[in-house]
């Protein structure tokens, strides 16, 4: 059993240079399994079993279907099937104006709706060349970070649920996490009036201003959430079973992660020091010095550590910003009177932001009419799921559940 107790001193890993990037040598250039393997070619005498996992399975995080080819309980080929939640958002956005389209992207990444909104709204703003006022920018940043904490809470809960079952210790961690997630949802509800699907942003600014006393509530909640983080660590980091289930499981080659387009904690856990909040700042991230946690082991445990560190960092950013929200308007444009109020100039833009799952981008083509010609949403979860054929090979069914959970895919975003 692999043991990596957190009290061990971290050893600086050997690095290797690849195209100007320093990557941890131990996990770079790992042998890649063939995702297109013909099952017939794999030892024809073996007792292979095709196992259909999903689309309705307790731990596929939605409606992902994984077709696993097992030899005993070891998987030698995994084929993900997606699209069970394909709601044609891109087609719908091609028929909606800038004002109408924000609620649709809420439903893409339903665990962090605000980042989806921001990615779309920023694309329209880049096309229109509109700069939201500073108050809106700072508010957006606070909202993004609150959303990141809530999203990671949900992730940690479901991750442990996958490991410990709905009727067991996993569900305890899950319920504790939801306790804190509810606190953050309360903050967002106080601001926007909704628990999910906030529809809080619009082109040129925000829709909702801060209610009185909100800042103090945010600070109090942040204190509580930070206290409770230590509790989760006691339940996970200090738990030998948790470590033995995650350490060394699902090691992700950073080069593969990059080429596959993975992002967020999946990338940073493999030693790639990349975060758009610091590297291509948007909203008010330029005003804060965002510290990026990076791990070098590349396994599920490293991804877990990165997300926990990101939660702490998000709490710090929220604390930093919430005490100094600048005064002023929250929108750069006049409040729209009708849906065609925003006239789009012709052009093509791409805007990427750092969602809790990686780079969430919007690619927008407009030909001058009120509705865009093409909206392409670049979902980080799609790329995370596309890693499964590489990561699942050689893992047992139990491991596959953990690997899938550690990648944190949201199927609404994968399928759109």
């Amino acid at each position, binding site marked *: 059993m692999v043991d990596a107790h957190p009290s061990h001193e971290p050893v600086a890993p050997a690095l290797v240079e*690849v*195209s*100007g*990037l320093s990557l941890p040598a131990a996990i770079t250039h790992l042998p890649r399994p063939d*995702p*297109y393997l013909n099952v017939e070619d794999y030892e024809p005498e073996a007792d292979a079993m095709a196992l259909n996992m999903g689309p309705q399975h307790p731990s596929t995080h939605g409606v992902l279907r994984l077709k696993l080819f097992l030899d005993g309980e070891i998987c030698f080929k995994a084929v993900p099937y*997606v*699209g069970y939640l*394909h709601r*044609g958002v*891109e*087609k*719908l956005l*091609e*028929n909606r104006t800038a004002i109408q389209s924000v609620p649709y992207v809420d439903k893409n990444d339903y665990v962090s709706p605000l980042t989806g909104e921001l990615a779309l709204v920023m694309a329209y703003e880049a096309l229109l060349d509109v700069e939201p006022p500073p108050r809106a920018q700072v508010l957006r940043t606070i909202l993004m970070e609150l959303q990141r904490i809530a999203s990671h809470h949900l992730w940690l809960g479901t991750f442990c649920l996958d490991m410990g079952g709905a009727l067991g210790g996993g569900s305890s961690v899950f319920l504790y996490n939801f306790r804190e997630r509810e606190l953050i949802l309360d903050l967002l509800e106080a601001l926007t009036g909704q628990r999910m699907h906030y529809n809080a942003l619009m082109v040129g600014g925000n829709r909702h201003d801060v209610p009185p006393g909100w800042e103090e509530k945010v600070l109090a909640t942040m204190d509580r959430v930070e206290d409770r983080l230590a509790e989760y660590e006691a339940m996970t980091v200090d738990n030998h079973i948790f470590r033995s289930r995650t350490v060394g499981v699902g090691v992700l080659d950073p*080069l*593969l992660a*990059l*080429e*596959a*387009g*993975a*992002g967020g904690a999946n*990338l940073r856990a493999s030693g*790639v*020091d*990349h975060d*758009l909040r*610091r*590297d*291509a700042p948007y909203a008010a991230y330029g005003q804060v010095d965002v510290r990026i946690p990076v791990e070098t082991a590349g396994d599920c445990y490293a991804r877990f550590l990165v997300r926990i560190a990101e939660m702490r960092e998000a709490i710090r950013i929220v604390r930093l910003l919430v005490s100094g929200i600048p005064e002023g308007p929250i929108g750069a444009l006049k409040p729209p009177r009708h849906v065609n109020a925003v006239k789009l100039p012709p*052009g*093509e*833009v*791409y805007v*990427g932001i750092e969602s809790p799952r990686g*780079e969430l*981008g919007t*690619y927008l*083509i407009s030909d001058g009419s009120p509705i865009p*010609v*093409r909206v*392409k949403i*670049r979902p980080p979860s*799609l*790329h995370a*799921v*596309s*890693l499964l054929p*590489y990561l699942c090979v050689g893992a047992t069914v139990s491991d596959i559940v953990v690997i899938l959970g550690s990648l944190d895919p949201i199927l609404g975003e994968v*399928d*759109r």
Partner: protein
Amino acid sequence: MPDDVLALFRTRLGLEEVPPEGPFVPPETLPDIVAALKEMGFLLFLYCAATHWPATENRPEAFTVAYGLRRPGPGSSTARLRVRIPADGSIPTLSGLFAGADWQEREQYDLVGIHFEGHPDLRRLMLPEDWEGHPLRKDYAIDTHHFPWR
């Protein structure tokens, strides 16, 4: 876009001016240029977005496919390029270069109906395998019925 990318586009494509949304690249040189970009550190595959342009008086039916790559790390930058192909044309696949292009191309094949030449596993990604038509084409009605479910 950063200067080294602009320089690459200028030398490889013989362009004077590179538009900010990316130059048009001939389909046959696409893999070479993307491979060169990958050598230059653009390791993160961002997006592959195909657009259907229905026929008008001025132009025949056509597709554009836009690609985006990102150089990770501090001071991150993107490289963007586009490919224009006729209605019955096809485009070489990038799935050999970027694992992430695999699914993006399958998605574009599914929704827009562009054939990616040399793709090892070009199946529909989002819609059922027996689906007819490509929904993101402009001539596809948004409320198309599908017996017996809608």
